[in-house]
């Protein structure tokens, strides 16, 4: 019989009737255990119909908070298998996203790309079953939009307008200054203008 304490003495009775008794007894005990389980509810679940919830920390397929990402490549550099690839154009502060893809043929769900992110914007999600008939489907695109959003366009326009206004104001101020300087020192040559 099983005890959590180590049995005191080795049990190596190998006499004829000892063998018969041990065989009959241990088989009966074993069959008792299996018979009990025959009637208990199975431990498994019927997978595709019935999915167990995954925990909050589950390391599934990534998701990206694209509006936070600053295209710093830190995650791509941290990845041991170089499976993160991204491309974007910078328009001042705004990013025009081209792609941000992870190759799930290579990715090993190690979460090392998550830690270095300065904006905490790449996470591991809860989705786990990537079933496909075509390997190229494993190259997943994480961006939810490409190019510029209306909002971004608006912000760019705003930023440009602000820049233009600033420039105009600067030019105006300069002109005024120049005019004042010209009034004071007419012989000074023009400088510092781009």
């Amino acid at each position: 019989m099983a005890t959590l304490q180590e049995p005191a003495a080795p049990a190596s009775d190998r006499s004829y009737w000892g063998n018969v008794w041990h065989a009959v007894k241990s088989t009966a005990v074993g069959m008792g255990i299996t018979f009990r389980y025959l009637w208990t509810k199975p431990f498994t679940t019927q997978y595709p119909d019935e999915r167990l919830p995954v925990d909050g920390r589950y390391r599934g397929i990534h998701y990206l908070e694209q509006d936070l990402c600053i295209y710093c490549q830190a995650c791509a550099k941290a990845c041991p298998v170089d499976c993160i690839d991204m491309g974007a154009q910078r328009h001042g502060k705004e990013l025009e996203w081209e792609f941000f893809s992870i190759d799930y043929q290579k990715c090993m769900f190690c979460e090392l790309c998550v830690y270095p992110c300065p904006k905490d914007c790449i996470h591991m999600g809860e989705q786990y079953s990537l079933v496909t008939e075509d390997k190229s489907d494993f190259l997943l695109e994480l961006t939810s939009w490409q190019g510029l959003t209306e909002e971004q366009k608006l912000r760019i326009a705003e930023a440009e307008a602000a820049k233009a206004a600033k420039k105009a104001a600067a030019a105006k101020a300069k002109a005024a200054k120049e005019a004042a300087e010209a009034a004071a020192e007419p012989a000074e040559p023009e400088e510092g203008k781009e």
Partner: protein
Amino acid sequence: MANSTKDPALRAGERLVELDVRTQDVEINMGPQHPATHGVLRVLLRADGEILTGAQSHLGYLHRCAEKIGEKVDWLQYLPYTDRYDYLSAMNNNLAYSLAVEKLLGVEAPERAQFIRVILAELNRIASHLVAVGTYGMDIGAFTPFFYALRERELLLDIFEKICGARLTYSYIRPGGLMNDAPAGWLEQVKAFTELFDKKWGEYWDLLVDSKIFVERTANVGVVSEELALAWGCSGPMLRGSGVDWDLRRDAPHLVYDRLDFEVIVGRGYRGTVGDCFDRNYVRMYEMVQSNRMIRQCLEQIEDGEVQHPDVGLLLRPAPGEAYVGIENPRGELGHYLVSDGSKIARRLRVRGPSFCNLAVAEHLLPGCMLADAAAIIGSVDIVIGETDR
């Protein structure tokens, strides 16, 4: 029944093969795809009928250049690769690597991290031994214990999933501490498991280990004598099964193992000769109980605190030097030998894998056994091909 192991020559590991009629031996390829080789091990057997006269194992079908990769990726990036050599005990691999890097860095993880590390390492030892015992049952023809073992392992995987989000390749224990602290409720879940496990453990014993057929198939089979085990560099249950009292958790104290009260289980010929297949399995069975005991003690002693050393960040540049740390993996001594040249990438990385060393002795045991014993002996070594081939 088969082998007269009372013969001193046999106990020293030598096999006497007596043949009455000279016939031609048959050469059989066991593997690389064979149900009993636990992966892609190929053993070339020479047999005279049911009796084996020679054996040679061929490795390398799963070679993935882990050590070379270690010289190409930076210190932390290598962590996921450690998961993959012995994929049944990835936490222990993470731990072994992290301890080696910490030694290079000259830092020590905070206390809470150390406790959680011990809990994880021991939980993973239980998970790994469950697979070892379960698949061993399968090797000798009992399917059901395997499912019972996997049932409890599933609970363990849930525990791992809760703390790190992965079920097999954890990458959780990292140089300097842990990736993040244990979530709320995790320690309670571990406690519930330890209580449940003590109840379920007896089922494996009664159903499998105590079964007469199991005893007959394993006792006095594949006897590794003490000298043989030491000569071939065995470690872990393979060595302890041969009666050598050697456990790195006790003999090379690391983490908080010196604060825990546990016994080192050694084989003592419970059903036959010291060092037979039964003893190796016996050691695994009782090690699970001891691990469970350690976890319970850790749960009592653990306190709140930091889990990551403040000076160890994501990009590591250890000072030039070298370090070797070996820890007690479920299968034996898993050592990492690291050489740093001060850059962010290891200069040299070398792994001492337990199942690779343990497997070497199997070749020595097979001649003289029966064909069916080949499955029993290879199974009792408990190899993980991912690690023998790396």
